[in-house]
């Protein structure tokens, strides 16, 4: 059995990560899950949140904006709507987005607006959390 896993994160815009790593922790819809070598075949939906992976002593964080994950034969494939590594995150923009979303949440009347604002807020928070570490 291999003692490494291959991690691939792809979005419609680009391939974000393609590396050999030791462990992956991803934000599943029903809770965070960790993947170590030898994991069972697994398919799951992701929520907006933080994905971590470790390569030897170095650990990395990626903001993932929802999507799907597949684990198969020590290979983890993440299909994300959008994904950004900590260094790529535009903190100013994310902060602006957070404020905008908070304002909308406070103002919004109908349910549709509320849900949208909530999703926007979640995305902004996920980005900020990783960027500010």
């Amino acid at each position, binding site marked *: 059995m291999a003692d490494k896993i291959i991690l691939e994160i792809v979005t*419609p815009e680009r391939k974000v990560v393609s590396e050999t790593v030791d462990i992956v922790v991803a934000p599943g*819809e029903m809770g965070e899950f960790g993947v170590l070598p030898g994991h069972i*075949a*697994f*398919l*799951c939906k992701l929520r907006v949140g933080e994905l971590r992976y470790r390569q030897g002593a170095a650990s990395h964080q990626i903001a993932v904006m929802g999507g799907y994950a597949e684990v198969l034969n020590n290979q983890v494939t993440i299909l994300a709507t959008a994904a950004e590594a900590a260094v790529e995150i535009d903190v100013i923009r994310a902060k602006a987005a957070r404020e905008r979303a908070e304002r909308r949440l406070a103002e919004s009347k109908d349910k549709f607006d509320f849900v949208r604002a909530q999703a926007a807020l979640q995305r902004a928070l996920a980005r900020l959390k990783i960027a500010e570490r």
Partner: protein
Amino acid sequence: MATLRDVKRKIEAVKKTSQITKAMNMVAASKLRTAQQNMEKFHPYALKFREFIGRLAAGVEDTKAYSLLTPKEEVKSVELLLITADRGLCGSFNTNLLVAAERFIRAKKAEGIEVSLVNAGRKAKDYFRRRPVKVRDSYTGLLNKVAYEDARRIGGDLIDQFETGSADEVYVIYSHFINIAKQQASLVKLLPITPAAGEEGATPFEYLFEPSHQALLTDLLPNYIYVQVLESLYQTSVGEHASRMAAMENATSNCKELVKTLTLTYNKARQAGITKELMDIVGGAEALKK
């Protein structure tokens, strides 16, 4: 024979045209490069997505549970998404797409099926404005910057049509990009979805699903449509630039040829003028001798 001045003027005009076509050729070449890069960056996502769907759908016994997978019992109306460029001057690129759409509509009408059209691209919009085809919606300016959001909007709209029963089948006509020199107008059925299960349907892995197989697939299927639409947009945009580049290349070389023949005519006319003058002088000199 044309006078010297006319020919000269014509040569100048053709030269100016060739400057323009040459510039357009170079612009198209650089746009082509960006468009192609974007398409290539999207490619892995589309590929993985297809694998996903293939695997998930392979394990489904009863397609009835998923409205997007279920073919309608009776097909009375279909919807066609037609993707063209916004601009012309790209050879037969748009014409090919329009002809394909026209043929599709005629074939469906012959079967007694109603067709409603969604145009993506100004050329399609203009073409069908005065034709007896029901145009339900038109988008323009999509290909300048192909974006996931656009694909999602269009795809979502098409799914709505399918689910509410306004359309029993949904098709797309786009330009399939084979290589820089070759693009082909292609027709693909979007809905109901027929997953490409042939690849490794023989080895269905025992997956663990979260939240559940059904929930996942239900969630994935609309996204699959978005991916399909997005890919069609990408391919058409690359095709447009490639096609324009080739057309402008042709135009430039035609201009050069034209300048050549015109210069020849010009020189001939000039030479004829000189000869005539010489004849006059010689004739005059001969007459004086006598």
